[in-house]
C-alpha cells in the first residue's frame, strides 16, 4: 500500500472507531498525551558544532551512508508513529539474517561505499573508511563485523603481513568482493593466547608447498566469522615448523571454497550455531587436513621461507616477530573502542528522549505525573553515563588519530591505549545499555526499541580481539616495565602520559569546595595521585614478592588486585586528559562551558565510583562526601541540557526507536497491522 492510501486508511480507522463527539470524554492528563521534548526543552549551545567535535571527521560521508540505508528497502524500513525506523529484522532465522547481511553488503558495494577501503593510500581515505564503518555499525553490529572481517582482518592481514605480490593479487579483488576473506586465528583451545595455537604447518621442499594441518580437536579454528557460509579464502594462523624447528606463529592464505561456494578438498567446515547476538555473522569452525598451498601464500613481510626450505627473517627475536604479527589487531581494537561508544550513544539517546516524554507517578494528588528525567534518581542513573560517553567519545577520536599517524615509535602507545580503551569502553557500553534498558522500563524489552537488544549484539565486544581482563592486565604489566626502566636507568618517565611521576606528588586539599572540585587542575591532580600511588604500590608488591623468591610472572599474577585498580586508573586518567585537551581547544562560549560541565561530571563520577580513592585514602571520607554531593548537583545542572546533548550525537531519527519519539502514536490501535 502506498503512503497516501495507508495514511487515509489510518485516518478512516480513527473515524470509525472514535467515540461520537457527544459522548463525554475523559479529559486527557499530561501523561496520556505525547508531547515532543523539543517543545519543552531549549538548547543553549550549538549542537551541530558539538556533533563536529564528537564525530570528528567525515560528517557528510557519514550522513550519506545514513541516507543510503534509510532509502533502501534492504535495510528493513518500518513506519511507526509517523516515522521511518531502520533496523534488521532480528526475528528472522540465523540463516536469513546472514543472507540479509550479505545482501546489504552487496548493495553498499554497488553504491561505491567501499571504494578505496583497501586500495586507498591516504590518511583521508583511511579516515573515511573508519567513518563509514562506524555508521554501518549504527545500523547493525553484524553488518559492521562482516565488513570488519573482510577489510580489517582479512584485508588488513594481507596489507600488513603480505608483501607487494600479495597486495597486487588480493587487495583490489577483496575491495570488490571478488574474494571473500576470513581470519582464522582463534582455535577451540586458544583464544586470547594466540601464541599457544596448535595448527601446524610444514614445508615440502620438493613440491615447494606448505602443508597445513589441524593435528587434533582443540586445534580446530573456531569463531571464524565468514567461514560458515560465505568466505572463499582465509588467512590461517599456524605454528611454522621448518626442519623440526618451530619458528612460531605465521600467517598463510588458504582457499577454502571455490567460486561456486563448494568447500575445497581437505577442508572441513562446521557452523558455530546460533549465538546470543550477532546472528547475522556466519561464524564457523575449520579443520585443515594436510592442506597443500603454494609457497607464495606465506604472508612474508616478517619472515619468509626460501624455495629450498630455508627460514629467513629480518626479525631474529621471536617475541618481536610475534608482536609484529599482532599489529593488525590494533586496528580492530580501535574500531571496537569507537563502536562501543557509538552504541552507548544510541542507548542514551533513546533512554533520555524517552525519559523526557514519559511520566510516572504524581507527587501530589491531582497533579500531573512527573517526567522520568525530573526524578533526581533517574538523572543520577543516566546523566553520569552520558558524561562518560562524551569523555570516551573524545578519547576514541584521540586514539583513532594516533592510529592514523602511526609510526614504529608510537606502536607501544597505540597498543596500550587501544587495549585500555577497548576494555574500558566496551565495559562502559554494556553497563550503559543495561541502565538504559532498565530506564525504559518494559519498553526496553522490545527489540524494536533497540536498547535491550543491543546488549546481546554488543556483548561479544568484551572478549573478542583480546579478553578485557587480559588486556587490562597487560596495561599494568607494561606500566610496571616502564617503572623498572625508569628506576634502573635513573631516567625520568617518558611516554604514556606518565611524566607526572617525575615531579613532586600532588596534594589533595583537605577542604573541597565546589570551585575546587570542578577545576580541571584538581581533577587531574587527583587522578595523578591515584595512578602514581597505585603504580608504586604495584611495583613494590611485585618486587617484594620477587625478593621472596617468587617468579616475576607469578608475582604479576598474584598482584592482580592492584593490577586491576592500576589499569582502570591509567585508562581514566588518559580519558580525562584527552577531554581537557578538547576543552582547551574550544573557543570560549556556551559550548566550552558545556564541555566543562561534562568533564567535571566525568571526573567526579569516576572518583565517586572507584573505591580506590577511599580504599587507599586519596580522599578522606569528608572529601568523598563532597564529591558525591557535587555529582548530584551536576546532575541537576546537566538536566536542562540532556536533550541537546543527545541530539548532538547526530544519530538520525531513523536509527533510534519508536519510544524515542511519539510512542503513543506508535502504539495506537490505528498503527496495528490489521
Amino acid at each position, binding site marked *: 500500500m502506498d503512503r497516501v492510501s495507508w495514511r*487515509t486508511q489510518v485516518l478512516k480507522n480513527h*473515524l470509525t472507531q472514535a467515540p461520537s463527539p457527544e459522548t463525554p470524554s475523559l479529559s486527557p492528563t499530561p501523561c496520556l498525551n505525547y508531547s515532543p521534548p523539543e517543545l519543552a526543552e531549549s538548547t543553549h549551545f550549538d549542537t551541530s558544532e558539538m556533533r563536529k567535535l564528537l564525530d570528528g571527521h567525515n560528517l557528510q560521508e557519514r*550522513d*550519506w551512508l545514513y541516507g543510503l540505508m534509510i*532509502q533502501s528497502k534492504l535495510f528493513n524500513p518500518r513506519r511507526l508513529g509517523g516515522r521511518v525506523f531502520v533496523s534488521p529484522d532480528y526475528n528472522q532465522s540465523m540463516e536469513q539474517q546472514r543472507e540479509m547481511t550479505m545482501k546489504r553488503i552487496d548493495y553498499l558495494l*554497488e553504491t*561505491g*561505499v567501499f571504494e578505496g577501503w583497501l586500495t586507498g593510500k591516504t590518511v583521508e581515505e583511511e579516515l573515511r573508511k573508519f567513518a563509514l564503518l562506524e555508521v554501518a555499525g549504527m545500523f547493525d553490529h553484524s553488518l559492521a563485523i562482516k565488513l570488519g572481517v573482510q577489510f580489517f582482518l582479512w584485508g588488513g592481514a594481507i596489507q600488513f603481513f603480505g608483501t607487494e605480490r600479495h597486495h597486487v593479487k588480493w587487495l583490489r579483488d577483496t575491495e570488490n568482493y571478488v574474494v571473500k576473506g576470513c581470519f582464522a586465528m582463534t582455535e577451540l583451545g586458544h583464544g586470547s593466547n594466540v601464541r599457544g595455537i596448535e595448527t601446524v604447518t610444514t614445508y615440502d621442499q620438493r613440491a615447494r608447498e606448505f602443508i597445513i594441518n589441524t593435528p587434533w580437536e582443540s586445534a580446530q579454528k573456531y569463531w571464524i566469522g565468514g567461514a560458515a557460509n560465505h568466505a572463499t579464502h582465509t588467512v590461517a594462523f599456524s605454528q611454522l615448523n621448518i626442519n623440526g624447528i618451530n619458528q612460531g606463529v605465521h600467517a598463510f592464505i588458504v582457499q577454502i571454497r571455490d567460486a561456486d561456494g563448494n568447500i575445497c578438498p581437505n577442508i572441513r567446515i562446521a557452523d558455530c550455531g546460533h549465538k546470543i547476538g550477532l546472528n547475522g555473522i556466519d561464524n564457523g569452525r575449520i579443520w585443515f587436513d594436510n592442506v597443500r598451498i603454494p609457497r607464495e601464500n606465506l604472508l612474508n613481510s616478517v619472515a619468509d621461507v626460501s624455495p629450498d626450505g630455508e627460514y629467513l627473517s629480518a626479525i631474529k627475536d621471536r617475541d618481536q616477530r610475534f608482536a609484529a604479527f599482532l599489529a593488525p589487531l590494533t586496528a580492530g581494537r580501535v574500531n571496537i573502542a569507537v563502536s562501543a561508544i557509538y552504541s552507548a550513544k544510541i542507548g542514551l539517546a533513546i533512554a533520555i528522549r524517552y525519559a523526557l516524554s514519559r511520566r510516572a507517578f504524581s507527587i501530589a494528588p491531582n497533579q500531573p505525573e512527573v517526567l522520568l528525567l525530573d526524578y533526581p534518581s533517574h538523572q543520577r542513573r543516566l546523566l553520569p553515563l552520558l558524561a562518560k560517553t562524551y569523555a570516551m567519545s573524545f578519547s576514541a577520536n584521540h586514539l583513532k588519530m594516533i592510529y592514523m599517524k602511526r609510526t614504529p615509535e608510537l606502536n607501544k602507545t597505540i597498543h596500550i591505549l587501544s587495549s585500555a580503551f577497548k576494555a574500558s569502553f566496551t565495559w562502559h557500553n554494556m553497563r550503559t545499555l543495561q541502565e538504559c534498558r532498565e530506564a525504559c522500563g518494559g519498553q526496553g524489552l522490545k527489540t524494536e526499541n533497540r536498547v535491550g537488544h543491543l546488549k546481546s549484539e554488543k556483548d561479544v565486544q568484551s572478549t573478542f580481539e583480546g579478553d578485557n581482563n587480559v588486556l587490562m592486565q597487560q596495561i599494568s604489566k607494561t606500566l610496571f616495565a616502564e617503572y623498572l626502566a625508569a628506576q634502573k636507568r635513573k631516567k625520568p618517565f617518558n611516554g604514556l602520559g606518565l611524566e607526572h611521576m617525575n615531579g613532586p606528588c600532588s596534594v589533595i586539599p583537605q577542604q573541597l569546595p565546589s570551585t575546587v572540585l570542578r577545576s580541571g587542575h584538581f581533577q587531574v591532580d587527583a587522578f595523578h595521585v591515584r595512578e602514581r600511588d597505585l603504580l608504586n604500590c604495584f611495583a613494590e608488591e611485585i618486587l617484594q614478592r620477587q625478593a621472596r623468591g617468587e617468579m616475576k610472572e607469578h608475582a604479576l599474577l598474584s598482584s592482580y588486585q592492584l593490577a586491576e585498580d592500576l589499569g582502570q586508573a591509567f585508562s581514566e586518567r588518559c580519558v580525562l586528559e584527552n577531554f581537557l585537551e578538547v576543552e582547551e581547544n574550544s573557543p570560549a562560549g556556551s559550548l566550552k562551558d558545556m564541555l566543562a560541565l561534562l568533564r567535571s561530571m566525568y571526573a567526579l563520577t569516576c572518583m565517586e565510583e572507584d573505591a580506590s580513592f577511599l580504599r587507599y585514602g586519596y580522599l578522606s571520607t569528608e572529601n568523598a562526601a563532597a564529591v558525591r554531593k557535587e555529582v548530584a548537583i551536576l546532575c541537576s545542572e546537566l538536566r536542562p541540557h540532556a536533550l541537546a546533548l543527545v541530539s548532538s550525537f547526530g544519530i538520525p531519527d531513523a536509527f533510534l526507536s519508536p519510544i524515542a519519539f511519539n510512542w503513543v502514536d506508535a502504539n495506537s490501535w490505528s498503527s496495528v497491522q490489521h
Partner: protein
Amino acid sequence: MASFSSSSGQEDEVLVEEKSFVRTLILNRPKQLNALSYQMISRLLELFLVYEKDSNVKLVILKGKGRAFCAGGDVAAVVHDINNGNWKSCEIYSRKEYTLNYLMATYSKPQVSILNGIVMGGGAGCSVHGSFRVATENSVFSMPETALGLFPDIGASYFLSRLPGHFGEYIGLTGARLNGAEMLACGLATHFVPSAKLLLLEAALHGVDSSDQAIIAAIIGEYSELPMLKEQSANHRLDVINRCFSRRTVENILGALEREATNKADDWILASIQSLKKASPTSLKISLISIREGRLQGVGQCLVQEYRMACHVMRGEISKDFVEGCRAILLDKDKNPKWDPPRLELVSDKMVDKYFSKVDDEHWEDLKLPPRSNLPASAIAKL
C-alpha cells in the same frame, strides 16, 4: 524595496473566495505564470495565519489563475535587487517565503492545492508541504534551480529527500520534468483528478464543514483516477536512478550515468547526463549535499539550512552563478551561462562547505521560524 513594486498595485495578486467554512486562495499573476511576488508571499502568509486561528475556516484551497499553478519565486525581481547590491531585500523575501513554507508544513488545518498547470520551484514550496496536492493531466512539475545557478530551496531538501529511493536527488539535480501521473507515482501529489472534474471537486469541497483529513481525503478520492504512467517515465527507472544517484559525489553520479550509457545507449540517460553537464557545477554540488543533509533533518532545520545557502548564493561571494544563470536563461535568453567555476572538479570542498556556514556579517542572522504549538512528526527538530 523598489523591486517589490513591480507587482501591480491595482489588482490583487491573491484573490480570496469564501464559501462557508472554505477559503479558496487564487494566485493571480497569470502573465508571470503566477510567480510569487513579495506581495503575494506576504499576503499568503497573513491569510494562512488568520485562517489558522479562525474557527470558521476548516479548509484552505490554493490554486492558480491561468495555465500555471505557480512557476516559482519572482526570480527576475530578486536578480534585479542583487544587481543593485540590494541583497538585503532578497533576504527579506526568502525569509518570508521560507516562513510560509514552514507554516504550511506544520499547518493544523488541511490545505488542498490544485496543481492544474506549471508547478516549479517556489510553486512546489507553497503546495508540497500542505496536506493534499491534486495533480491533473495539465500538471508540469520541475525543480529547475541547478540550471539557474541556484539550488532547490523552499524546503525541497526536506521533501525531495523523502521521495522513494534516490528519486529526489534525480529530480533536484537534473531539473527533470514530471507530469501529473508521475507526480502521483512518486508521492509529490497525493491525488490525480482530471481537469474536467475540477469544478465538481471544488464544489464538493466547498461543502466541507470539518478539518478532518479523512473526510477531505474521501471527497478528493471520489474524483480521483489512477492515471497510466508513460512507458518512458522516469518512475519506471527507479533502479537506474538508485544505482546512479545514490553515489557519494556529483562526479560519481555522472560517472555512474556515463557507465550506464556505454552499457546501453538510452535517450533518457543521455538527457540526464546532458542536464547535469549544463547545470552550474557549484549548484549541483551544494544541491546534492543539501538534499542529503535534509534527509536526516526536520523541515524546520531544512529551511534554516537553505536560508543560509540562499544568502550565500545571493551575496555571490563564493560564486556568482545565480546572476549569470538568470542572465543566460531568463534575461538575455542566450541559454549559454558561463559558470564560474566552470567544472565540477574546480569546485572545492572548502567552497561547498562555506554555503552551509553562517554568513560572516554581524547584521546577518539565521532564519528564525515562528514557534508552532502543533508539531507533526516531520517537523521535530533534530540536530
